[in-house]
């Protein structure tokens, strides 16, 4: 990100955790980033970023990367706790936006915008994790919490070009 200001060159791979850790399973992306940051020295060519609910900031974070991995809580009509790897071309969004506010975001639309401007990373992978609980609470459900190591292992396999 800060390569624009020459703080440091962008790394080849970025892993983005999207969501809010104060909304139970909505925070799964942020929690996974926290786990990877604790072992970041193992991955010198990877930026791990907790993008929270910043929405459009994702557009800038994925630009010009060789690989971008987005981790987000997702309604996919699967069992709570299930993880699924997919590419944007494999899905259609059914999220309804009111277009009344900047504060609602559909990451799939942000990804489309990146594509339209030729700022799409060479490779983009999404890991969706089906939530069990979405409500104000600062901890994941037991179901997702028990599977953290499985999620880390699945994502770690993608941390090479």
């Amino acid at each position, binding site marked *: 990100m800060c390569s624009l200001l020459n703080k440091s060159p962008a790394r080849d791979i970025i892993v983005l955790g*999207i969501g809010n850790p104060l909304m139970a399973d909505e925070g799964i992306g942020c929690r996974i980033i926290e786990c990877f940051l604790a072992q970041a020295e193992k991955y010198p060519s990877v930026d791990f*970023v907790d993008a929270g609910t910043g929405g459009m900031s994702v557009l800038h974070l994925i630009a010009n990367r060789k690989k971008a991995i987005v981790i987000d809580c997702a309604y996919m*009509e699967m069992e709570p706790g299930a993880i699924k790897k997919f590419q944007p071309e494999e*899905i259609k969004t059914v999220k309804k936006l009111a277009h*009344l*506010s900047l*504060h*609602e975001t559909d990451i799939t639309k942000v990804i489309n915008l990146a594509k339209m401007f030729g700022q799409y990373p060479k490779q983009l992978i999404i890991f*969706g994790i089906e939530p069990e609980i979405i409500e104000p609470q600062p901890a994941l459900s037991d179901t997702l919490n028990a599977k953290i190591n499985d999620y880390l292992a699945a994502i770690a396999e993608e941390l090479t070009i």
Partner: protein
Amino acid sequence: MSKNININVHHVTRVEGHGNIVVNAKNGKIEKVQWQVPEAPRFFEAMVRGRSYEDIQVIVSRICGICSITHSFAATKAVEAALGITVSEQADAIRRLLHYSEQLQSHVLHIGYLAAPDFFAAPSVVPLVAKAPDAVKTIIRAHRVANAWSDLIGGRTTHPVTIKPGGFTKIPTEKEFRQLQETLKETLKDLGTIAGVILSVAGNIPNFQRDTEYVSLKQTNPSAYTFYHGDIVSNDSKGKTTPIKDWHKVTNEYVVAQSTAKWAKWHRDAYAVGALARFNNNAELLTDGAKKVAKMFSLEKGCCNPFMNTVAQLAEAVHVVETSIQMIDELLTKGLKTEKVKTSPKAGKGSGCVEAPRGILFHEYEFDKKGNCVAADICIPTNQNHANIQKDFEKFVPEIIDQGEDAVRLKMEMLVRSYDPCVSCSTHMLDVQFIK
């Protein structure tokens, strides 16, 4: 044109609430006009109770992905007021620089992604790309600079990690500040381009007027166009300011049947906050470049057309960039110092206030002697605008009712968007189906 109108713009997804617009008219007679808001992020107030004063900023920065720096500062200032913590002149200046970055981020996003599609008659920013690709590219570039600026000082684009009561955990180097300054000089040119593009479609900004009370911060001694310091003022308060600690006397929050979000009123039955409110209370203190932008659009102090909030944001975007270029010079002339911040817990109660891009924001906390939070109260700008949006609807709809249902619906949505509301930002999950 049909004399019967039934508009029910109802947006409630599974967990993200949105504002609903309802209009019923029969035989040309308006029976119902309502702005309904089914959510407010009140649960954050419960979530900080029992937490240390050092943790408050981290938690409340998650209230909003667009205003996370603003919530961080309102909270941190409230904590500092409660515990009697002072902030150095250097940290204060760097905080204002970080806060400006969020104003630029949010304003550019609103102008480019929400308002410009309306002015270009495009349903959203994606089809706008086909109509005005260069304009969208310039907007994206300016937004990218603002994000990198937040990242540089806040340690992360969204939900900053370097802010703490009393100062910062880390600040940029002199070289990084100089690079930022050079980048901002380029951004100023981009903002000029964006202003020109918006001016070319300014004829599509509806000409609607309603005499309105405008509430914002006002800073005196020294006078400044403020987002961070000062007391509360309105165009109805005859120059008298209200101290931040008395903010409840301004907001007077109340409950209405049509909304689960609380509404606010001060001298009248509603008031507006945001860029236009700040402009109306402080316009003479804008930088020269910002005044020039306002003049391009004939935006003058006293304007009561809510659609001009977007133009006020454009002027403010130039203001924060010009001011920051100058502030970096002042900061580096004095020389950056390494400052260590040490605080200790004590009992106390304090309020903090800053201007979010979309208007004045209040936080208040009370701590026990161990520094743990026992009470919290947050009043977000969008809640303060709800009653005003309703009052605008009540005057606006009769003026446009003859234009037919589609035009009425679009213009009411445009009106809501002009307030740049925050109605759904604590969750952002995907909702997808797999293509078979």
